[in-house]
């Protein structure tokens, strides 16, 4: 197959003549290859309506604050959908990037809360530090801190990813390494008690760029920022998925060697997905801090990192809508169930993992496709193969 022919077939994916790879990708992911403009736009408008109009009207301030927290998880899920669902990169260390973004933001807010010349409260408490540690100082600058919330996680992901993907470390190896990164980061944070707050983390954050976070009006403002950021990330991920790059990413997931033989470097393709996902998690962590007022190692270690993945898996790792709704749903279920029965939540969470991954690998989003395929099979009389989603060796 020549390159020019490949390009033409790729453009005409809406018609019946498609490349086998694109057809397989579509079959696996249940996402249409064509740029069907009207339905996504309507869905986007509906989501915006719910987030900006309905939710603030019907929810109490407390519930709206919880929703803001869930939306942050959903932002991480957008990145997971891209890296794992599309790229087959099971990253169990998204908590690291969430944490980097969160700590970058929290460090700035703590410095701002303390006021010029003062140390953040927890440093005064331990009494070990007489001045701000050198690596805290740049975060006094709001522009630096804001940029760092996204760029710092992306840089860490770029370094690790470059090392890992270049030498074709993949699949389970990559998952375990990313998990080890989460463990090491959390342990390191806990170890640096005097400068990171240790196990407690950075707590009791009062202000957000001059606004008092205890004021419900400002809390709403934070919610609106988070909702807007989520919609922005979804739009960005959608553009990426439907670009030439998006097709390449799925191709790398399904057959890395074939992509290599076509002249692409799969390492770079994977690296972009991993770095973008890290940036999304970093932004989510940064916005989580003003919404909840705390960032700590307990929010970013191995366990929370895997919890971030489960939402996307339950909803449907390969579908943006599925991953986002799954993340929100699981986070909501956690609050609802663990408020009443803390023990029951753990059993339920375990069951979710098992049912979603062993019996419904495409997540809830794939149910739509399964039902539709059953219906067409009945009319057309052709069998539809059932294939697992997003698996690379």
């Amino acid at each position: 197959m020549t390159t020019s022919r490949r390009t033409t077939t790729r453009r005409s994916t809406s018609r019946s003549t498609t490349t086998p790879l694109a057809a397989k990708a579509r079959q696996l992911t249940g996402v249409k290859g064509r740029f069907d403009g009207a339905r996504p736009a309507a869905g986007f408008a509906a989501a915006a309506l719910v987030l900006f109009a309905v939710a603030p009207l019907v929810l109490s301030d407390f519930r709206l604050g919880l929703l803001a927290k869930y939306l942050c998880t959903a932002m991480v899920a957008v990145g997971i959908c891209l890296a794992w669902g599309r790229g087959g990169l099971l990253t169990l260390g998204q908590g690291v990037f969430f944490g980097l973004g969160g700590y970058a933001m929290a460090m700035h807010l703590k410095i701002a809360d303390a006021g010029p010349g003062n140390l953040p409260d927890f440093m005064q408490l331990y009494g070990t530090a007489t001045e701000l540690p050198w690596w805290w100082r740049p975060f006094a600058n709001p522009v630096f801190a804001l940029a760092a919330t996204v760029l710092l996680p992306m840089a860490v992901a770029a370094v690790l990813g470059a090392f890992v993907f270049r030498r074709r470390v993949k699949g389970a190896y990559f998952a375990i390494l990313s998990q080890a990164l989460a463990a090491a980061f959390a342990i390191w944070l806990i170890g640096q008690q005097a400068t990171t707050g240790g196990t407690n983390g950075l707590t009791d954050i009062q202000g957000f760029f001059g606004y008092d976070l205890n004021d419900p009006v400002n809390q709403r403002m934070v919610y609106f920022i988070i909702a807007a950021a989520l919609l922005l990330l979804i739009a960005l991920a959608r553009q990426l998925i439907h670009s030439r790059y998006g097709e390449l990413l799925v191709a790398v997931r399904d057959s890395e060697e074939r992509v290599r033989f076509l002249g692409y470097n799969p390492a770079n393709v994977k690296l972009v997905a991993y770095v973008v996902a890290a940036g999304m998690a970093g932004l989510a962590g940064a916005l989580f801090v003003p919404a909840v007022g705390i960032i700590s190692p307990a929010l970013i270690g191995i366990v929370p990192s895997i919890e971030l993945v489960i939402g996307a898996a339950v909803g449907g790792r390969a579908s943006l809508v599925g991953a986002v709704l799954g993340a929100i749903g699981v986070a909501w279920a956690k609050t609802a169930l663990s408020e009443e029965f803390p023990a029951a939540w753990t059993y339920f969470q375990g069951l979710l993992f098992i049912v979603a991954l062993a019996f419904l690998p495409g997540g809830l989003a794939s149910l739509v496709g399964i039902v539709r395929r059953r219906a067409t099979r009945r009319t057309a009389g052709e069998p539809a193969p059932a294939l697992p989603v997003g698996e690379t060796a």
Partner: protein
Amino acid sequence: MTVILGQMFTGVSIGAVLLLIALGLSLTFGQMNVINMAHGEFIMAGAYTTYVLQKSLSGAGISLIVALPVAFLVSGALGALLEWLLIRRLYLRPLDTLLVTWGVSLMLQQLARDMFGAPNVQTRAPDLLTGNITVIGGDDPLTFANSRLFILGLAIAAVVALSLTLRLTPLGRRIRAVVQNRDLAEVSGISTSRVDRTAFFIGSGLAGVAGVALTLVGPIGPTMGTNVIIDAFLVIVVGGIGQLKGSVIVAFVLGVLQSVLEYSTTVSVAKVLVLVAIVAFLQWRPQGLYTLRTRSLV
């Protein structure tokens, strides 16, 4: 000098614990290509088995000796059950086994919390294992803890037993055949599903033995598995999947590295440095220290 030797011994004993944990994983992850996150909870099951036995049997020494085979059976049975219920449906999707077994591990942890309570519990070590052996006497003595020596011995015995089983017994031959070429093994008349389950039984059983050993060096708690499982996975990854000798070498190297780095920096910095060393090592050998040579492109 004795300080360095002491640190080396600490490193070797950390390595022995790692090796005991990684040994079972080497079977289930290396040979069956299943990333069993519940392996840590099988370790926990072995540790709680020791605890229960010690409550019902008088004499710490007897209960420890009884606990070794019983923990092997308890954890092995759990593993075989898990294989039969879930994992056999997932052999072609290794990454999904990771998340599914993570779900299982969450439930097992909660089960342990409901059965034994959330706080850690402790067992008594037999009198014979509580003391120290003085290797170098004098003003600057070098002593080895008996319990650590026992774990080292246990790890060596487990490695020897496992490698002899794999090399010499008909079961070992069948396991190796399934690992090297599953389809060919199947058409040669080997029941691959039965071999899978047996291998899983042995691998999980070894986790139980590791759990018994861990009761000698630390408390028993619902989350004890999570704390050690990542390190054990790293041992397998660096050693080479399915390569026993790789796991043995890497377990001791990582143990010594960890202990030396801890001595010269702090525990938390040592963890980070070990991870950096591992990533650097994988640049040199992406498939681990030893690899099964194949002509496969992936």
